[in-house]
């Protein structure tokens, strides 16, 4: 198997051979920052293209076909357009909070993105409390959303932000509980440790029924946290024009837009890491020839394939279900998902003890 740690270690040794340690660290920080931002932007473009294409396919349309072959350059053209757009100055907004909100949302998203283990040796920091970090940082985004809604001085944005706050904080619970179920199974909060434990069988099989239930709960709660699909109350177009980012224009709107799409990917990537074996290839015990063939596919490809499969699932759900009402949304969380997640943790405890 080819791991990216070969490349990263080679860069590290190459720099250390010529430079003092301080400079090596500095250069590596800059490199990592540039790579993270670059991958973030490219992934956003890919996701926007995929979203438009797949949603068109669900509606029996073709989607973008004009810019480039099969419309591949459409999102690049959109990016250029949004960079050139004017930032409209709005009267009677809170200027500091208004500016800050867009940055907070995207910073929370980038911080979560940076901690994902894409491959062996291809993650920025290997915290021993990785899962905790992911939960903590990804829930920072709600502060930005509330801030945007409040600072815009507009009823639509305010209602959107309040709905978003209620929704994100509630669904954070069952999201976290589902992640805790897997932490109980693997006995570690460290993401690289969780992934390396799944080299033979993925957690979703290793954990049996409790892990399957946790996976479904995580997908539903995570989907709700991205403010999309049936849970898009914060930006319900027919009721609130665009929800909390109604007043934003140009690249500030672009930040919200980018963060929304990347959050979709981040939720899928966390689901991949915790439940579907991260970058580990598919192994079935006993099928040795099959296992060695699967090992030839690079782990990065495995990671992205699984993550994009989860993204496809989320898009599929999005274009199937109608939007929930706010009381139905909260009822789903507090009366169904959270009790189920709590029971599931107990089940997992029994599973860990007896199997």
């Amino acid at each position, binding site marked *: 198997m080819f791991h990216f740690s070969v490349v990263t270690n080679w860069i590290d040794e190459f720099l250390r051979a010529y430079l003092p340690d301080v400079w090596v660290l500095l250069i590596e920080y800059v490199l990592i920052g540039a790579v993270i931002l670059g991958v973030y932007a490219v992934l956003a473009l890919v996701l926007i293209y995929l979203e438009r294409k797949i949603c068109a396919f*669900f509606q*029996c*349309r*073709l989607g973008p076909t004009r810019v480039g072959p099969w419309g591949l350059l459409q999102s690049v053209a959109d990016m250029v357009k949004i960079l050139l757009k004017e930032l409209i100055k709005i009267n009677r907004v809170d200027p500091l909070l208004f500016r800050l909100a867009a940055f907070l949302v995207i910073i929370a998203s980038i911080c979560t993105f940076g901690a994902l283990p894409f491959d062996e040796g291809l993650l920025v920091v290997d915290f021993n409390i990785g899962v905790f970090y992911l939960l903590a940082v990804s829930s920072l985004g709600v502060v930005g959303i509330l801030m945007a809604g409040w600072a815009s001085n507009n009823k639509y944005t305010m209602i959107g932000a309040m709905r978003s706050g209620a929704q994100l904080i509630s669904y954070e619970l069952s999201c976290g509980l589902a992640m805790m179920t897997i932490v109980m199974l693997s006995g570690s909060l460290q993401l690289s440790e969780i992934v390396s434990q799944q080299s033979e069988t993925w957690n979703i099989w290793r954990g049996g029924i409790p892990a399957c239930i946790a996976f479904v709960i995580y997908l539903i709660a995570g989907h709700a946290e991205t403010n999309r699909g049936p849970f898009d109350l914060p930006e319900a177009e027919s009721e609130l024009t665009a929800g909390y980012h109604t007043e934003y224009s140009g690249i500030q709107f672009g930040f919200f837009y980018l963060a929304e799409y990347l959050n979709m990917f981040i939720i899928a990537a966390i689901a991949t890491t915790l439940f579907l074996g991260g970058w580990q290839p598919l192994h079935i015990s006993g099928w040795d020839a099959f296992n060695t063939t699967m090992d030839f596919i690079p782990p990065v490809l495995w990671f992205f394939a699984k993550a994009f499969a989860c993204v496809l699932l989320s898009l*599929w*759900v999005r*274009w199937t279900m109608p939007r929930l009402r706010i009381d139905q949304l909260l009822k789903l969380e507090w009366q*169904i998902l959270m009790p189920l997640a709590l029971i599931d943790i107990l089940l997992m405890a029994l599973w860990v003890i007896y199997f």
Partner: protein
Amino acid sequence: MSYIKSIIVGIWRLMQGMYITMLNFIRPKVTECYPENRGKTEPLGAMRGELVMFHNENNQHQCTACGICQMNCPNGTIQIITKMVPTGEEGKEKKALDKYMYDLGSCAFCSICTISCPQGAIEWSKNFEHATFTSPKLVNQLNRAGSTLMEKEK
């Protein structure tokens, strides 16, 4: 117990919905890529593209210049200019069609002209690419140059 049952029934209903959307996902798409599929796909049979006059191989049409279509047209789109042509008999002349002017720009495509025509001389073609750079080009003469009235077979 009914609580658990309602959850399972709800999940089953959602799966049914997702099955339907997946069927749509793999279905052939309905979008027509217009400039690429030009000439490859035929418009629907009842399409009213523009008004044309039927001519046979001897450059003969069926219009007797009766003017019913001109009178029935709600927009004044059709203008029939007639001329007198001598018949075979001595000193007698007969009214015949000189120019059948059709202004596409003011046509409402109501099809009253083709319905009211007693001879069946005019009909709709499926050509829908009408764009021109100036509006006078929209006024067309429907009868061809030098065309004559088709003889009725007796």
